[in-house]
């Protein structure tokens, strides 16, 4: 059984089709990257996998550990081990970051039949994970993402990844808007979270994140489909030639879609 299997997924919003037959298979331990131009459907796919109900699925299915992912609520997906690092993390004034993460972790632990962590135990866990993304503990005492810089918000996402311990982590443009130092910190954090029993799906517009987080597979998304799949060479080629190059090439995978091995 695969960890994630997306079969011929068609989805859209207000009758406009955005995903037009996505096929993708991910196994534990793998790191996949999806690249593609703006509007190709990358972020829609990420949001859809996390449970955003803005989009309606017209065809196809998504199996997560063999279960129908699309019928699960966002919170059930989280409990089952799906995590989305948001492209635009939401600011939540009035809710402390520490409380937020502990409540989230305990909601998940409770549902998994694990003991909840008290404030002291959680603090110890948070301190350890903060090091991973080089974040100061003071961020835990502030409201969730409120007044955080772009880079701080992205680090806070990776921190949540580390705390919530998912099986499938989807990172939606986690590299966008970061300077090189921040990118390296994020990349280090992500690399520190690679594990044989955890898969990652990196969604990115640019190749540069992939210099630091080396993926097993690279997929190029265009026009709501995965147009091309390959190893990291594909990413480098794209970087050199641009997305326009892709559209001029015949697509060898168009008939059966891209299925990662």
């Amino acid at each position, binding site marked *: 059984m695969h960890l994630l299997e997306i079969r011929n997924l068609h989805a859209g919003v207000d009758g406009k089709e955005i995903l037009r037959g996505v096929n993708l298979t991910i196994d534990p331990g793998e790191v996949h990257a999806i690249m593609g131009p703006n509007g190709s459907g990358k972020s829609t796919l990420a949001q859809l996998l996390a449970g955003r109900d803005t989009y309606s699925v017209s065809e196809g299915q998504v199996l997560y550990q063999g279960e129908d992912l699309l019928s699960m609520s966002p*919170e059930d997906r989280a409990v089952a081990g799906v*995590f989305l690092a948001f492209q635009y993390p939401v600011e939540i004034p009035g*809710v402390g970051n520490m409380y*937020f993460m502990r409540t989230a972790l305990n909601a998940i632990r409770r549902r998994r039949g694990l003991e909840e962590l008290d404030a002291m135990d959680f603090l110890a866990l948070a301190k350890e994970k903060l090091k991973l993304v080089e974040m100061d503990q003071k961020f835990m005492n502030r409201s969730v993402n409120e007044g955080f810089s772009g880079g701080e918000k992205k680090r806070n996402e990776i921190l949540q990844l580390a705390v919530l311990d998912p099986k499938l982590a989807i990172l939606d443009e986690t590299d966008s808007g970061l300077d090189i130092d921040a990118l390296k910190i994020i990349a280090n954090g992500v690399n520190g979270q690679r594990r044989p029993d955890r898969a990652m799906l990196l969604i990115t517009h640019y190749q540069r994140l992939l210099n630091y987080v080396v993926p097993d597979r690279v997929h190029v998304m265009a026009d709501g489909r995965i147009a091309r799949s390959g190893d990291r060479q594909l990413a480098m080629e794209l970087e050199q030639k641009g997305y326009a190059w892709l559209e001029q090439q015949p697509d060898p995978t168009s008939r059966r879609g891209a299925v990662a091995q």
Partner: protein
Amino acid sequence: MTESRQHYLARFESLRERLDKLGTDRVRRLRRSAIERFGDLGFPTVKNEEWKFTNLAPLLAVPFEPANRDGFDLDALRPVAARFDGARLVFVDGHFQPSLSSVGGLPKAAVVSDLATAFAENPALVEANLGQHALAKSSAFTALNTALMQDGVLLQLPKGTVLNDPLQLVFVSTAPSKMSSPRILIVAGEGARATVVEAYLGLCEPPYLTNAVSEIVLEQGAQLEHYRLQDESARAFHVGLVQVTQGRDSHLVSHSFSFGASLARTEVRTVLGEEGSSCALNGLYMGRVQQHLDNLTSIDHASSHCTSRELYKGVLDQRSTGVFSGRIRVHPDAQQTDASQTNKNLLLSEDAMVDTKPQLEIFADDVKCTHGAAVGQLDEDAIFYLRTRGMAQQDAKRLLTYAFAREMVELIRLDAFKARIETSIATKLPNGRELAEAA
């Protein structure tokens, strides 16, 4: 309408003998002119600009009788009183209960007494201030309170007196179909400082009416932090006025929490009468089921160099309605006025409603006045964000609602009162569970 007016005029007549024994001639005259005024005014209708959003028909449908002094279960009240640890005056159905009260630990210079006693022991002080600030001529409810008042509180702080601990005034209603008319008079002398808590609670399921008036004078440099909790029983009616007159460089902080009652009207009015005086009016109203919670504030910038800050928040769930009317009047001579007003509302259901009405009347030119009003729903993006982190939808909504209300809780500087408000808020949230540690 006329019927209810006649009813209360008749109640006054039947109580007249008893009422006439309370206070001096001047107080008796005050009562008489108040009841006449009430007879002239009658209860306000929605045609009255200040009552535009509140229909009093449900309140007027019940002919409330002035509450008696006896006939309640003292033992049931002990635990309620005990929750207000420290100096407290407890009133049951509007009447002072010495056995539930305790005023030890207050400075000797301070005069703290129930109003019935004050009528006898401090007549000069009472008659010099009573009815001079909260005017019977301007409101039928104030007129009715003035005519029917039997008990309440007198707090007088001579020059420089400081109350280190809060004085808590607790009003508990226990009697069905009764009305109480508590009257509070606070006179803070030059440089005096105090914190006062007013709490209105109910142990009575059927409808009853509280019609409370607080009249407050802050002399030069006096500082008052005033907390008001309206947490009446679910079917009760509550009308309350806090009327403040502020002297030079005085400072008022008012916190008004309106949680209970089926229909509540809470007014906080202050007159910044002399240079350098300032006020901060804070409020939180949270309605559920079919509650109607009306809040009116009025700030008169009657002198120059005065500052006012105002922040009211509303959370309306189910079929409840909220009202915020914020009047700021800047008089022609009130140059260098600095006023700001903010009202934010969160509607948790499609059937909940709120009317928000800022009303700025500015007659001076060198002023800084800002105001803003907002009505919104919970942020769907934030709900989704929390759900992707494993929180159930209801829990996410509750947490975000709590976060919205929390700003007002954070302004509370009394730990015990803060804890009480946090508990009240938690019970008003969908699936009420403790969220007090969300910070």
